[in-house]
């Protein structure tokens, strides 16, 4: 569902229409659950974060405006921050998962139903591969700087600099 379809649902949600909120949930919960699950790796915590996110979305619907991005990226922000909080609170990050489950997603095969066309992907492609990998590990798996260090086996200073410079290059590329 795109912005044109989600926005009327969010507007109606802000006005207190429960049917619209149910429909918004129906159309977006799979996307948001995929995100909280990838970050938290535990179904119970991922579901809890998802619940929290939708309770917040219900209460904060009227604070959405176009400056905050699309309805979907705004909702993703809420779900991601909630999952990141949970990650820190529960400190769920068993060591073995570094090798088994965590892999920086290949941008071409994100499980995408359609090839990503956003400028962001082109800009990510232009980054050095270490920068791209470090940013993706942090974004999708919620790894901290030190956790990225364990995963890629490079010094902390190097990892921090990959992420910092990678983001800076991204911003430059996106602004062109």
């Amino acid at each position: 569902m795109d912005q044109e379809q989600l926005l009327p649902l969010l507007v109606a949600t802000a006005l207190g229409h429960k049917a619209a909120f149910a429909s918004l949930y129906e159309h977006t919960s799979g996307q948001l659950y995929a995100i909280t699950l990838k970050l938290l790796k535990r179904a119970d915590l991922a579901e809890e974060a998802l619940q929290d996110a939708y309770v917040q979305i219900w209460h904060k619907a009227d604070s959405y405006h176009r400056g905050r991005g699309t309805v979907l990226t705004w909702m993703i922000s809420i779900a991601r921050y909630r999952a990141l909080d949970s990650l820190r609170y529960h400190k769920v990050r068993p060591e073995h998962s570094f090798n088994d489950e965590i892999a920086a997603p290949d941008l071409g095969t994100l499980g995408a139903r359609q090839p990503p066309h956003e400028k962001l992907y082109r800009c990510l492609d232009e980054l050095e591969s270490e920068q791209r990998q470090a940013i993706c590990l942090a974004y999708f798996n919620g790894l901290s700087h030190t956790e990225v260090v364990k995963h890629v086996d490079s010094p902390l200073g190097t990892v921090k600099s990959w992420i910092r410079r990678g983001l800076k290059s991204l911003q430059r590329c996106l602004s062109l």
Partner: protein
Amino acid sequence: MNYLTPALRDALAAQYVLGTLRGPARQRFTKLMMRHESIAQATWYWEQQLNTLATHLEPVAPPASTWEKIAQRLHTSSNVQAIASPARSPRGWPKVVAMAAAVMLGVTLWLMQPPDTEKVYQQLAVMNNQQSEPVWLIKVSPEQMLITPTSQLASKNNNDYELWMLPADGSAPVSLGVIPQQGELAVKTPNLVKAERVKALAVSLEAVGGSASGAPTEVLYVASLFSVKS
């Protein structure tokens, strides 16, 4: 004062969204965001950009019970009703959410219009049921309308009552919103009422949350507004 340079602001915003800004630094950044619009805007920019990454993850259906848990959490009362899943029927919503919304509306309107013990009511309407018992009392002062249900009002768990003005010129009814089934509701007196251009008031029975069409669904009570003899 915003002491961050644009470069530092953008860098911190990006790491905040990415999730690598942590601990006290994250908390400090959250405060800065609330204080400075430019910092909030930088954060929104990165949310918009980076979160397009997650829009391409393959969706995973959450457990079927998740929706019910969310609906229950938005339902503050203990008498939990059966809640339909969104795919089957979006209507099975708990009434307390709607009542809370109605109360919120009341609170908002009330805050807009601080109570005044010296109110002088100039118009009145009394709505009766079929047994000629009064069910709604409506008092109008130049500042506020006070809407009170009596004990004769039938409680509706799965519906809301909505108040309407019927303009004297015969135009379409104008909603004054969902009205609570108990307690007094004070709303700011609409200009139409002040100008005495309202023929009558009506209360309709609606699905929870009020009329979706903008017109009354089932009108239950109608009463004229009368001036008080002075």
